[in-house]
C-alpha cells in the first residue's frame, strides 16, 4: 500500500480546508459582522412573536361556527425586570400591591428567563394606558392573543376549547412559550397543529427607553407568521342544533352518519354547555363549575361513554349467526320464556320476524348455538372456543375499536372474550349459562353511541363502512384519503337482506317495536333497545337508517333512564331523520312533547 502513502496529505488538506471555511465564517460572525453584536448590558434588540390568526371553523355547508377576537395579555420576563414604579403599574391594572407580588411570585416560580402571563386579557381601556407607560416597566410586554367567539351555542363537545398551555405540555413541545393558547378538547385539540398555523418572529432595535427604533437588519432575521388553516366540519349545524334541542333536559346522545361516506352529520351529547363559557377571564371559574356539575356536561357522551347496547345487539348476533352458518333466515325458535323473559308477540317465523318482535328467547338460542359449537366435549372448553370465534366476528362490526374520527377521547368500548371471563371466573370455570346475557346485549358488552351509529351504517351499506369522521376539509385540502375508502366487514352481503327486512318490519308493521319511528312516504329501517339499568330506570336506545333502498342517514339515539326504547329514542330518531331528509317535521305535536319532556338522569 506504499503507493497511497501520500494520500494522507490530501485528506488532511481537505479536512483543513473545511475547518478553515468554518473558522472564516466564525471570525466573520463574531468579529466583523457588527449587526450581530448585542451587548449584554443594553437590550438593544426586542423580539416580538407574531401570532398567526387561528383557523376558523365552519360546518359542512360553510356556515361559520367559530371565529377570532383579539385580546391582550401582559407578559413578564422576571430576569429582565429592573426597579420601577410598581404602584404606577398597579394603578394601570387596577390591582393592589399584594396582588402584584402574588402574580410576580407566580411568574418567577414558572421561570425567571422565560416569559409568562402576568395579567390575562387586559381590557381595551387598560391596554391604551398601559401602552403609554410600558417603557417604564422593563421586563413587561404586551402579547396579542386570539380569543374564540362562537356564532351559536351548538356543538360545544365537537368544537372543544382552547386555553393556556400547561407546564408539562410546554416542556415537551418547543413550539410553545408560556402563556400560549392551545387546543384543550374537541377539534381544537385534535387539529391543534393545523388550526394554530406557525408563529413568526420580528426583531426590532430599541433604544435605552425601550422604544422601538426600527427593524433589525431590515427584517433579514425575521420569520413570517403563517396563518392557521380553516376547518370545515362534516356537521350539519341545523341538524346538530335541532338534535341538541331535542335532547335538552335529557341525558344521552345522538349520532348521525351519512353511510355513503362516513361523514358525521350530527354528534349530540346532552347535557351540553355554551362554548362561550370557556372563553375569557371567567374561563377558570366556569370550567370548574362545569367539571364539578353532577350531570358531567364536559363529557362527550357520544364518543366517550359506553353502554350495554341492549336489543339492538340482537341484529349483530343474527349477522354473526348467519355468517357462521348456525342460523338460517327461516330458522324458528319458540318464544320459551323459561329461558329468558319476553313480551307477548306472535311466533317469530324466521330471523326477520324475530328482529321485528325483538324476541329474547330467540336470540338466546342464536347466541347459544354460536357459543356451544359442539367442537369439544367439555362444555367449558367448548364455550371458550365458541366465544373466541364469536368475538373475532362481532368485532368486525366496529365494536371494541376506537375510531379515529378527528376528536380526542374516543372510547373503544368492550367486547368480552374468553380471556375476560378467565380473569373473572377462572379458566374453564364458565360456560354459556354464565354469559348468556351477552346474547341480548346486556352484561359486559359495552358500545358507544358512535359505534351504534356506525354499526347501523354498516347494515345500511350491506357490509362495509367508511371511517366515521368529523372534518370534511382542512383549508383548501380535503382530508385524509383513508376516510373515503370502503372498509369491508367479514360478513357476506347476502346476509344483510334478512336483517334489513327485520328492521323494516320493526318500524313499519304491527307488533314492531319501533313503530314510533314511522315516517309516512318513506321506508325507515330501525331497531329499538331497552337496556336494563341496575342503578335506576332503563336506558332507551334506537338505531335506524333511511330510506331503505338508498340510505342517506344512519342514526343512533341513546337516552339514559328513559325506559322503553320505542317510547323516547325512536321518536327522537324519527324527528332527526325528518329534519335531515325532508327538512320539515310531519307531526309537530310529537316534536312539542319531546321538547317539553324532562327526563332526569338517575345515577
Amino acid at each position, binding site marked *: *500500500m506504499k503507493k*497511497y*502513502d501520500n*494520500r*494522507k496529505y*490530501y*485528506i*488532511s488538506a*481537505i*479536512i*483543513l480546508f*473545511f*475547518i478553515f*471555511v*468554518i*473558522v472564516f*465564517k*466564525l*471570525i466573520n*460572525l*463574531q*468579529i466583523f*459582522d457588527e*449587526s*450581530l*453584536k*448585542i451587548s*449584554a448590558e443594553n*437590550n438593544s434588540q426586542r*423580539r416580538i412573536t407574531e401570532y398567526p390568526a387561528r383557523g376558523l371553523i365552519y360546518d359542512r355547508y360553510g356556515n361559520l361556527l367559530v371565529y377570532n377576537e383579539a385580546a391582550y395579555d401582559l407578559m413578564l*420576563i422576571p*430576569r429582565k425586570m429592573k426597579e420601577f414604579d410598581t404602584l404606577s403599574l398597579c394603578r394601570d391594572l387596577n390591582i393592589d400591591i399584594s396582588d402584584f407580588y402574588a402574580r410576580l411570585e407566580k411568574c418567577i416560580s414558572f*421561570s*425567571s*428567563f*422565560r416569559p409568562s402571563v402576568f395579567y390575562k386579557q387586559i381590557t381595551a381601556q387598560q391596554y391604551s394606558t398601559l401602552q403609554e407607560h410600558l417603557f417604564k416597566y422593563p421586563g413587561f410586554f404586551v402579547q396579542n392573543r386570539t380569543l374564540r367567539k362562537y356564532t351559536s351555542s351548538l356543538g360545544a363537545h365537537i368544537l372543544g376549547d382552547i386555553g393556556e398551555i400547561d407546564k408539562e405540555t410546554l416542556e415537551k413541545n*418547543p*413550539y410553545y*412559550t408560556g402563556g400560549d393558547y392551545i387546543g384543550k378538547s374537541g377539534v381544537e385539540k385534535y387539529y391543534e397543529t393545523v388550526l394554530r398555523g*406557525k*408563529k*413568526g*418572529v420580528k426583531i426590532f432595535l430599541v433604544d435605552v427607553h425601550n422604544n422601538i427604533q426600527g427593524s433589525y437588519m431590515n427584517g433579514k*432575521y425575521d*420569520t*413570517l407568521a*403563517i396563518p392557521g388553516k380553516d376547518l370545515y366540519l362534516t356537521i350539519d349545524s341545523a341538524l346538530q342544533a335541532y338534535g341538541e334541542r331535542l335532547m335538552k333536559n335529557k341525558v344521552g346522545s345522538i349520532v348521525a352518519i351519512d353511510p355513503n361516506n362516513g361523514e358525521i352529520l350530527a354528534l349530540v351529547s346532552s347535557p351540553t354547555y355554551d362554548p362561550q363559557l370557556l372563553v375569557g377571564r371567567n374561563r377558570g371559574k366556569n370550567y370548574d363549575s362545569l367539571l364539578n356539575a353532577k350531570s358531567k356536561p364536559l363529557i362527550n357522551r357520544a364518543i366517550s361513554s359506553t353502554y350495554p347496547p341492549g336489543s339492538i345487539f340482537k341484529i349483530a348476533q343474527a349477522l354473526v349467526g348467519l355468517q357462521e352458518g348456525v342460523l338460517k333466515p327461516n330458522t324458528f325458535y319458540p318464544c320459551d320464556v323459561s329461558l329468558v323473559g319476553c313480551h307477548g308477540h306472535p311466533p317469530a317465523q324466521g330471523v326477520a320476524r324475530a328482529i321485528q318482535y325483538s324476541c329474547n328467547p330467540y336470540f338466546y338460542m342464536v347466541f347459544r348455538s354460536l357459543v356451544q359449537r359442539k367442537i369439544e366435549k367439555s362444555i367449558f372448553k367448548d364455550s371458550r372456543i365458541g366465544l373466541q370465534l364469536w368475538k373475532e366476528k362481532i368485532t368486525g362490526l366496529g365494536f371494541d375499536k376506537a375510531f379515529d374520527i378527528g376528536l380526542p377521547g374516543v372510547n373503544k368500548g368492550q367486547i368480552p372474550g374468553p380471556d375476560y371471563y378467565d380473569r373473572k371466573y377462572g379458566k374453564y370455570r364458565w360456560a354459556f349459562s354464565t354469559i348468556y346475557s351477552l346474547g341480548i346485549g346486556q352484561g359486559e358488552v359495552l358500545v358507544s353511541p358512535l359505534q351504534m351509529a356506525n354499526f347501523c351504517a354498516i347494515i345500511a351499506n350491506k357490509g362495509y363502512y367508511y371511517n366515521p369522521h368529523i372534518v370534511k376539509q382542512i383549508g383548501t*385540502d380535503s382530508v385524509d384519503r383513508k376516510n373515503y375508502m370502503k372498509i369491508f366487514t367479514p360478513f357476506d352481503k347476502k346476509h344483510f337482506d334478512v336483517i334489513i327486512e327485520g328492521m323494516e318490519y320493526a318500524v313499519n308493521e304491527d307488533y314492531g317495536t319501533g313503530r314510533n319511528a314511522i315516517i309516512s312516504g318513506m321506508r325507515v329501517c330501525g331497531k329499538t333497545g331497552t337496556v336494563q339499568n341496575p342503578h335506576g330506570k332503563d336506558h332507551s336506545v334506537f338505531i335506524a337508517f333511511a330510506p331503505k333502498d338508498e340510505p342517506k342517514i344512519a342514526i343512533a339515539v341513546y337516552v339514559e333512564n328513559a325506559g322503553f326504547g320505542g317510547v323516547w329514542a325512536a321518536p327522537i330518531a324519527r324527528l332527526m331523520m325528518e329534519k335531515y331528509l325532508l327538512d320539515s317535521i310531519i307531526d309537530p305535536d310529537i316534536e312539542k312533547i319531546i321538547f317539553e319532556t324532562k327526563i332526569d338522569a338517575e345515577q
Partner: protein
Amino acid sequence: MQNSSIFKRLDWISILIYLLLVLIGWVNIYSAVYEESHSSIIDLSQKYGKQLIWIGAALLLALVILIIDSKFYTSFAYVLYAVGILLLFAVLIFGIEINASKSWFQFGTFRMQPVEFTKITVCLALAQTMSSRFFSFNEIKSIIKIGIILFLPILLIFIQNDTGSALVFFAFIFVLYREGMSKELFFTGFVLIVLFLLAMLTNLEILLLVVLIASVVIYIISNTRTLQARIMLYLFLLYSSLSLIFYFYSDIFTEKLLLLIIINITINLLTMLILYFTSRKKIILLYFLILLGVSAFVLSADYIFNNILQPHQQNRITEFLGITDDPLGIGYNVNQSKIAIGSGGLTGKGFLQGTQTKYNFVPEQSTDFIFCTIGEEWGLIGSLTVITLYTFLILRIIFRSEKQRTSFSRIYGYGVASILFFHVAVNIGMTVGLTPVVGIPLPFLSYGGSSLWAFTILLFIFIKLDSDRTENLR
C-alpha cells in the same frame, strides 16, 4: 510484558483532548439549562446532572475497552456488524418516534439511538473487509462487499427518516480513498456529498447538483487519459470551488442566482474554447447541448419552485430533503443560532451570561446547538479553542493510523477520523449557517448518553488498537 506497560503505550495526548472536550461539553450543558432556581450541580432531574452520570459511565466504558484484547475487534467485526444492523431493524419495529424520525429505543425514561453504535460496527466491518489480502478496488467482488456494508445501514436509517445520521456514513469515502479508490471517483463522490448537503440548505443548490451531474457525465464520456479531459476536470474543480465560495458568502450579494449563472456560463465557455482548440468536435457539440439543457433547467426549475409551487408544496420538497425539525419555520433556528454566536464577539459574555441562549431563543441548545452556548458565552476564543481541539484530535488520529502495522488498525483509524470530521464540520457548520439543520450531535460535547458513549467507544477502540501496534494482529 504487554499488559504491564499498556498504560505507558496509550496515546495520552488523545485521551487528554477527549477529557477536555467532555468537560467543555458538560460546562456548556450546565450553562444552557441553567436557571437561578436550580440548587445543586448534581441535580439528577436536570440535564447536567444526568450528563454527569453519562460521563461516569462513558469513562467506565473506555476502561473496559482498553482491557479487552485487540483481537476481539478483528475476530468479531462481522458479528458486531450484524448486531448493529439487527438493532436498526428492531428500532423500525419497536422504536419510538421523536422529531419525526423513528430511530429511538425507549426503556422507561432512558432513550437510546442505535444508529450511534452502528457507526462503530460499520467502521469495524469496513476495516475487516478492506484489510483482507484479497481486497482490491479492481475486484468487482470487493466493491460489492463494501457497497453492501455501507449501503445496508444507510438504507435502514433513511427509512427511519433520520437523514442526518444516514449522511454520516458517506464520510467513509475518505477511508476508501486512502485505501486506493481512484482519485477521479473520490473527487466526484466527495463533491456530490458536499453538494447534497448544500442542496438541503436552499432550493437553488439542488440545481447546482444537476449542473454537477451533467458535468460528471461529460467527464465520464470523455477519455480520462487525454489532456483535454484533464483540463476539463481542473476547470470543473475551479467552477465548483468558485460556486462554493459565492455560495458561502452569498449573503453579501442580492442577485445570487444571476452570479451563479454568469460563473457557470463563463467557466463552461472557457472549457469549450479550450476543447475546441485541442480536440474532438463531437464532444464539444455534446457538451454544448448538455450545457444548454442544464442552463434552461436551472432557470425554469428555480422559477417553478418560487413562482408556481404553492407554499405547502415547497414545504413538502424541503421536508423531503430532511429539514423538518424547525418549529418556527425554516431558517428560524439558524437565524437565532447565528445571532447568539455573533453576539459573543471576541471574548464572549462569560459563563452563564449568555442571554440569547438563556431566553430559549435557540432550540435544542444542549444537544445539537450546544456550540451556540460556547460561541455566545466564550466568544471567538472559546469557539476556536474547541475547533482547534477537534482538528488536532482528527489529524492526530490520521497520522497515528499511518503508523499502524496492520491495515485493519489503519483503516479503522481513518474511519474514526472521518466520522469525527463529518460530525464536527456538519454540526458546527449548521450553527453558523453553512450546512443544513440535520440534527447530528457534536462529538463528546452534546447532551445525551447514547451519543457520548458511542463516540467514546469509537475513539477508545482506536486508542486500544494503537497501543497494540507493535503486535501483529494477523
